[in-house]
């Protein structure tokens, strides 16, 4: 009893510490990669190649003056940043980031590398993610500011629209894996099959569900308010969108929530489509982190490359293109499952 409790606590502390660190360093990676794409240097002053920049930014944000405008709905205004950041971090509780480990023989029994494995893991991530919208809408509403309200409304319309396609895009994976548990989904992707009898291809669901992966990743971009779907915080139209009135650490919490959400959707994509922790050789968490990082790099690459959608384009793309495609994918996967 006590032993399981300690193991659980250690896992929670390690995972959330790592997640916080990853969120901080995502900002550094993003600035560096975009700078490189735009032929600049990016942050260089704080530490070698600006490596200490995230820490300096964090300290600065913490010591900034915390302004609360007089016209806001005070309670909701104060609550919104937490409502935004807590779901972003909780979703990681069910993501398996590795197989089992004994920490190089230090532990007597192998420990599974996930905080918890619940029977409804996929639904849990989607459910918690849908709670994250409240933070954004409430921030927009309680700020009592036109730009904030518009940003909040845009965001909620966008999230509700793309959540439908996102949910449908993973149904194919669920049909193939036959489970909602994320650990089971990863295990279902083990092994190889031979393409045309000569090329070995891993049984990752991206190869049997390419359309599902594309739809999922597009929706993931929209769900995390990232370019080219970053309309809720389109600076040129809305000042800063739903977080216009926020300052200091409250602003930082929205910022952290966005990056944590990016990491979560990438981790979920890795788990469901890229075989999770599975890899030919070496420790499993390394494979998991590598795949997640690859997807995060894609996020940054898109931001540096693609212009923003117009609002009507965003809506018609979501409802008239992605949703029918996602439905088609469901039907196709069901037929495939019937055949096999």
């Amino acid at each position, binding site marked *: 009893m006590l032993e399981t409790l300690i193991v659980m606590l250690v896992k929670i502390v390690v995972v959330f510490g790592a997640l916080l660190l990853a969120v901080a360093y995502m900002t550094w990676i993003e600035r560096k990669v975009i700078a490189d794409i735009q032929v600049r240097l990016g942050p260089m002053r704080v530490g070698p190649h600006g490596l200490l920049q995230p820490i300096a930014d964090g300290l600065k944000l913490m010591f900034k003056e915390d302004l609360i405008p007089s016209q806001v709905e005070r309670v909701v205004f104060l609550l919104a940043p937490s409502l935004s950041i807590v779901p972003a971090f909780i979703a990681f509780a069910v993501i398996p980031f590795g197989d089992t480990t004994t920490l190089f023989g230090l532990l007597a029994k192998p420990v599974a590398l996930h905080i918890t494995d619940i029977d409804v893991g996929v639904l849990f991530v989607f459910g918690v993610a849908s709670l994250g919208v409240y933070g954004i809408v*409430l921030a927009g509403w309680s700020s009592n500011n036109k730009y904030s309200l518009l940003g909040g409304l845009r965001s909620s319309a966008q999230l509700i629209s793309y959540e439908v396609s996102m949910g449908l895009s993973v149904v194919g994976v669920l049909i193939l894996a036959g489970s909602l548990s994320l650990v089971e989904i990863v295990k279902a992707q083990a092994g190889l099959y031979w393409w045309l009898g000569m090329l070995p291809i891993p049984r990752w669901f991206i190869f049997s569900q390419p359309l599902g992966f594309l739809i999922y990743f597009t929706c993931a971009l929209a769900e995390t308010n990232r370019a080219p779907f970053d309309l809720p915080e389109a600076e040129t139209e809305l000042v800063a969108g739903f977080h216009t009135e926020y300052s200091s650490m409250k602003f930082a919490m929205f910022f952290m929530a966005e990056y944590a959400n990016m990491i979560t959707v990438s981790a979920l994509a890795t788990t469901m489509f890229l075989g999770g922790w599975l890899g030919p050789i070496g420790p499993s968490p390394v494979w998991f982190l590598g795949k997640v990082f690859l997807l995060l790099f894609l996020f940054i690459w898109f931001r540096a490359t693609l212009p923003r959608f117009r609002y009507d384009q965003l809506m018609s793309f979501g409802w008239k293109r992605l949703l029918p495609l996602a439905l088609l994918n469901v039907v196709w996967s069901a037929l495939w499952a019937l055949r096999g």
Partner: protein
Amino acid sequence: MELVIFTGLALVAALAAMLVIVQRHAVYSALFLIITMGALAGIYILLEAYFVWIVQVIVYAGAIMVVFLFVIMLLDIRREPDPWTPPGRGRILTALLLSVVLLVELGMAVAQRLVLPPSGAPSVAGGFGTTQTVGRLLFTDYLFPFEITSVILLVAMVGAMVLAKKRLT
């Protein structure tokens, strides 16, 4: 332990449900509705019905979100003035009558519980409340009600579309 958690959740649910109706501002009502739904979801976990728990979170979180949007889009964002007026005789009488009915119902429930001695929590079979079990039941024993419900929901959706779209082209 289970009783403590249940009591806590039940109290939160009941209190938040009361706060839903006494709020003057619709957004706060919706917020308390979320708390009520969250507490109910917790009770589902106590019952080991994990699938129903997460569906409760997803469906109601989404549904209340729509309520929010309605409030923000259709009502004035500013705080409404207090609409309270002293109740008339008819309102007081109705309230008294309804509370008597509620009290009698409560009394009957307690009396029944006293007559029948508690038999302890009913044991659940392995795999109870998992996605597999719920899914199998939905598509075998309860297929007909399940399909009927989907059709009714579809009808409601079509109706909402027709109402929302003023000019059908």
